[in-house]
């Protein structure tokens, strides 16, 4: 399983903060997971259209080419604005 988290404006837009997903065959990196989720259509398009979307894998900042394995925690979120 993958645990997927969404935060802030993205969480609101998608209408959910988290989900679990069986790691689909052929999904080996963050980009492939993003494309798979965006293919749901509707609001999920924003995973492709939002500027500067950020990613984390296992609570570390990641990139689109960061690899994924079963059991990983993946997060999608807008640029951070703390401080």
């Amino acid at each position, binding site marked *: 399983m993958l645990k997927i*988290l969404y*935060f*802030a*404006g993205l969480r*609101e837009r998608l209408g959910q903060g988290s989900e679990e997903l069986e790691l689909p065959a052929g999904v080996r990196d963050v980009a492939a997971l993003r494309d798979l989720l965006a293919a749901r259509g509707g609001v999920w398009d924003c995973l492709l259209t939002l500027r*500067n979307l950020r990613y*984390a894998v296992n*609570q*570390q*900042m990641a990139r689109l080419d960061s690899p994924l394995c079963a059991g990983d925690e993946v*997060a999608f*979120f*807008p*640029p*951070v*604005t*703390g*401080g």
Partner: protein
Amino acid sequence: MRISVQEGDFDVGAELAALRQGNPQIGAVASFVGLVRDSNDGAGVAEMSLEHYPGMTEKALAEIVEEACRRWAIIDALVIHRVGRLLPSEQIVLVAVAGAHRGEAFAACEFIMDYLKTRAPFWKREVTPSGARWVDARAADDQAAERWQEPGAD
């Protein structure tokens, strides 16, 4: 090193006293306190709420402080960041660095704050007269963090 992500307020005087207590090698403490302003991007701000990524936030802050300890000869550091609902003039964040001399304390404090702004997973949502909105990241914050980029780093 103390890292805290908390809803409650903090007492700057008490925190700075605790940071330097019992260590006569400390000759300088530099600190930064961030506050909620009552306006942003041309609109009044009645209140703010701060969301974060529990678990990753604490790790990201600890890594930033560890990086500061690697780069400067500092003795100790402290980061407290609040989450949840906050009103104008309330304290949001405290960064404090203790060192032997002011130079490394100032630099490390500014570095921690610049990296926190661009790398720690917090998000601000503010309530304005025209409704609630998520605060946009600023290019100036990215530029401030890039100043600290080491040659050859990713």
